């Protein structure tokens, strides 16, 4: 068992003995250290300890979540062949790939950059965009859209304004320069995210089936290339403490967060796609993201069932004197590892010379199954590749139901003697809800993002889903995408909240005219070692998995971000869901905005009746309580099928689902397209035990559609046939007034006034000074 140790490292500071303290500082448990010794048959060197610590981190190994993630369906049952078929499954590669027909496919994935963005919002968010774009083009796909899912504290806080300003500027800086349109996203403002914002970035790319590339190292003797930017000491990240101890220099002048270079990324995209288009040249390719050179070498070797050996002297370096620990753990951006067929070295080198990028041959594929790293010719790490990937520990954490749920789940407005709204209260509530940053227009954000580059954007940000035209050879198809997760619901009922996130995401796609293809998720939670946090995670995953199976929407990849804790405790559980949908014909692309005053409004799904977890309770009454709204997946499916059928029959002029703020907010948002519209709404025939719940409750599975007057009867009849409640609630008008009649109140607002508050709320808040 005992193997001979490696020779001394060329850098003497790396030859210090491995003490329990050093192991602890690497975030590894003693039992994990024993496991490392078992894999190696000896003590690790310090370089090897660093390599294990990053590869066995939650980020790379999913050691606390892997058993949970197995619950997700990874195949689409109804698509053994053809559109919707999963071509690359979750966990196999850097991103999943789905067949969209005619020999074409889409690759997509979401990933978090929460902690870097909390420390340095601009670079943290920028490199989050850069990283997810690399995950997509490494699969052989051309990136055609990005979206973002963001969570911040309340905008009253100067610290939150500073974070928001930095994150938005960082996303804009990177995405605008790279030239991938940012077509949508979602954002919530809630105290639970104060100090711990969430920054999740998604990218989607297109490719032909035969262009799919894998992160595999195979073929004894095939050369291994390092391409892109040079390696620096930046982004030693989680391991930065070690570099402090190891180096005479102060770590204080090294950025803990990586710095992105979107121009370099743009060149890398073009050069890599050009290289991958050369027939038969590339064996495997993987980006260097988290854990950089370490992760890309051991993962490609492990996937290929091969070994890799590299010489660090050949790695392009930004500064002199870097040691093996620093080079292996650097998270410098815009770098890729490429394995090509032996004898074709000149072809890859010519492509990268054209783009003025490094292409350095750093090593070759072996048949040893080991990752062998040399520095100045001396072996500094020699590890079985699979020990770093499949050999990582897996834990099942303890879960216990948080005590607060006893109180919140029992809360009812009657039990709490919450007075219902009177007409004056309802009159005042609507503008307050519309101007709350969570509900208000996100124009201040998306006008800073280039959302039109590549000239494919068919539905711009601000509608229920972003829609992009894909140019597929001679033909075209439209892709719709929506991000959703109401963390408030997940806090109040984790399982149901996650199901709602999925149901709402699919509803948003249906409103855009799209059938769902597949889902990617970003699980943002607190510390998994706290049983209450782990309970939330476990329940949310169970809810998502159930909804995915019910709707037959497979999960093709995603990301887990744990330890999201603010000074007041964990964030609201936030399992962000993003589903990609397909629209076959341009005529079916549907927006939430009523195009003109020629429309009848029909509410599908029935009158809202619930108040629990609503923005109304939060904004007007200052409460985050009650149970999350009920979810009925079968009813949801009937609604969405009906809606898609009516859109394809050409009867729907606009469609918008009820979400935060409820029915009246939804109607207003439909009127905020072309100026000058109003609506006459009559709800007096609807059952309404409470006025507040009818107007502002967030019961699920509801959509308002605007249809031509002549089509109204047909839509009502189709709804009846499909078993979907449908109520004619009024008409779009040309008078810029919103009038609402209920059994108990007659209300009226000026639409221009409502719109002004909704449109400028975030902009006005951001004019106030932020810290720093």
């Amino acid at each position, binding site marked *: 068992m005992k193997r001979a140790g490696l020779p001394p490292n060329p850098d003497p500071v790396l030859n210090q003995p491995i003490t329990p303290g050093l192991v602890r500082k690497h975030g590894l448990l003693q039992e994990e250290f024993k496991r490392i010794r078992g894999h190696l048959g000896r003590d690790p060197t310090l370089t090897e300890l660093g390599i294990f610590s990053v590869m066995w981190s939650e980020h790379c190994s999913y050691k606390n979540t892997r058993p949970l993630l197995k619950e997700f369906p990874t195949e689409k049952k109804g698509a053994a062949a053809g559109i919707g078929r999963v071509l690359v499954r979750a966990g196999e590669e850097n991103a999943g790939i789905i067949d969209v027909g005619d020999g074409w496919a889409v690759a997509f994935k979401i990933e978090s950059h929460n902690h870097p963005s909390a420390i340095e919002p601009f670079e943290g968010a920028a490199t989050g965009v850069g990283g997810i774009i690399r995950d997509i083009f490494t699969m052989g796909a051309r990136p055609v859209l990005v979206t973002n899912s963001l969570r911040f504290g309340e905008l009253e806080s100067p610290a939150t304004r500073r974070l928001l300003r930095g994150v938005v500027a960082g996303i*804009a800086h990177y995405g605008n320069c790279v030239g991938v349109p940012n077509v949508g996203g979602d954002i919530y403002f809630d105290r639970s995210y104060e100090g711990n914002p969430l920054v999740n970035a998604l990218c989607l790319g297109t490719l032909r089936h035969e262009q799919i590339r894998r992160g595999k190292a195979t073929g004894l003797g095939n050369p291994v290339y390092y391409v892109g930017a040079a390696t620096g000491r930046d982004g030693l990240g989680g391991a930065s403490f070690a570099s402090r101890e190891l180096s005479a220099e102060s770590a204080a002048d090294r950025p803990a967060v990586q710095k992105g270079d*979107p*121009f370099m990324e743009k*060149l890398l995209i073009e050069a890599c796609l050009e290289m991958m288009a050369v027939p038969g040249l590339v064996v495997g390719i993987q980006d260097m993201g988290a854990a950089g050179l370490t992760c890309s070498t051991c993962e490609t070797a492990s996937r290929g069932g091969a070994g890799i050996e590299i010489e660090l002297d050949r790695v392009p370096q930004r500064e002199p004197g870097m040691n093996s620990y620093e080079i292996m753990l650097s998270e410098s951006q815009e770098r890729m590892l490429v394995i090509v067929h032996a004898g074709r070295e000149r072809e890859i080198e010519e492509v990268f010379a054209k783009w003025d990028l490094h292409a350095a041959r750093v090593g070759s594929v072996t048949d040893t199954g080991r990752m062998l790293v040399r520095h100045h010719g001396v072996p500094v790490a020699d590890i079985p590749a699979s020990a770093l990937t499949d050999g990582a520990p897996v834990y099942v954490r303890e879960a216990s139901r948080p005590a607060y749920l006893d109180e919140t789940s029992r809360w009812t407005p009657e039990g709490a003697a919450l007075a219902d709204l009177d007409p004056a209260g309802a009159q005042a509530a609507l503008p307050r809800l519309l101007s709350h940053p969570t509900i208000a227009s996100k124009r201040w954000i998306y*006008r*800073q*993002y280039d959302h039109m580059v590549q*000239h494919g954007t068919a539905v711009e940000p601000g509608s229920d889903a972003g829609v992009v*035209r894909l140019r597929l050879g001679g033909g075209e198809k439209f892709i719709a995408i929506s991000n959703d997760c109401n963390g408030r619901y997940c806090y109040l009922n984790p399982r149901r909240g996650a199901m709602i996130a999925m149901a709402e995401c699919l509803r948003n796609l249906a409103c855009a005219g799209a059938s769902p293809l597949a889902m990617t998720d970003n699980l943002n939670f607190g510390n998994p070692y706290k049983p209450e946090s782990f309970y939330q995670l476990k329940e949310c995953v169970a809810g998502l998995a159930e909804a995915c199976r019910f709707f037959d929407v497979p999960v093709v990849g995603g990301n887990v971000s744990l330890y999201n804790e603010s000074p007041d405790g964990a964030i609201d559980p936030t399992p962000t869901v993003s589903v990609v949908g397909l629209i076959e014909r341009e005529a079916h692309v549907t927006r939430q905005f009523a195009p003109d005053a020629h429309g009848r409004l029909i509410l599908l799904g029935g009158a809202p009746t619930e108040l629990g977890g609503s923005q109304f309770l939060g904004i007007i009454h200052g409460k985050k309580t009650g149970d999350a709204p009920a979810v009925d997946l079968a009813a949801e499916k009937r609604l969405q099928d009906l809606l898609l059928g009516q859109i394809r029959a050409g009867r729907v002029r606009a469609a918008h689902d009820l979400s935060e703020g409820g029915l009246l907010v939804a109607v207003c948002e439909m009127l905020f397209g072309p100026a000058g519209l109003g609506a006459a709404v009559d709800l007096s025939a609807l059952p309404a035990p409470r006025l507040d719940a009818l107007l502002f409750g967030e019961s699920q599975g509801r959509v308002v559609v605007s249809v031509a007057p002549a089509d109204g009867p047909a839509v009502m009849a189709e709804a009846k046939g499909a078993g979907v409640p449908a109520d004619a609630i009024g008409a779009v008008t040309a008078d810029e007034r919103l009038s609402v009649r209920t059994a108990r109140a007659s209300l009226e607002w000026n639409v221009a006034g409502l719109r002004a508050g909704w449109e400028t709320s975030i902009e006005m808040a951001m004019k106030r000074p932020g810290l720093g």
Partner: protein
Amino acid sequence: MNIAVLQFPGSNCDQDAFHLFGSGLKLPTRFVWHKDTRLGEADLVVLPGGFAYGDYLRCGAIARFSPVMGAVREYAQRGGLVLGICNGFQILCEAGLLPGALIRNSSLEFRCMTCELKVEDAGPAFNPGVLGPRIRLPIGHGEGNFRIDEAGRGKLVANRQVLLRYVDNPNGSLDDIAGVRSEAGNVFGMMPHPDRAFERYHPSCDGLAVARAILAARFPGLIRKIA
């Protein structure tokens, strides 16, 4: 007819410009790499939008030294048609082929939105009679704030060199200027994107009319055929 679209490292609207002319107007269109020193036979040279060389120094300041720019200068001096869109406009200003300069937006933020534009009388091909008094085109830039000295400003007006003005100024440009042409009338530059306004689902299809009007500055007969 032969349209040449330049590709600088960091150009990211090269495909958009290509498709405006190639798919939108169905004209023979090709790319020219920035390291090329010759343009070949071209009837219009387009400098597309993007972030040439990352625009880290100053927009267009490095791109103007690209090998291909020598050929562009010579081509323009011979009277050849040149169009710079967004970053292309910035490069043409840096190269001295168009007057003025483009600095950071007054908001200090990038702006992506659709703008209403007033069409100016800039000659027989480009005027309200050809394009209508108002058109709508998207913008997407962080440095589109047009500046010029007093003398230059006077010359722009006297020679009818202003092509377009913003109705609701999004970037602080002097006199709301969104696009200009050279004194000789063969070099055009504009911050708005005609290459984002030619598909059915775009905010407008006014990009097609703008592209035709620019070609008409040199080929009035030919344009009627593709109109």
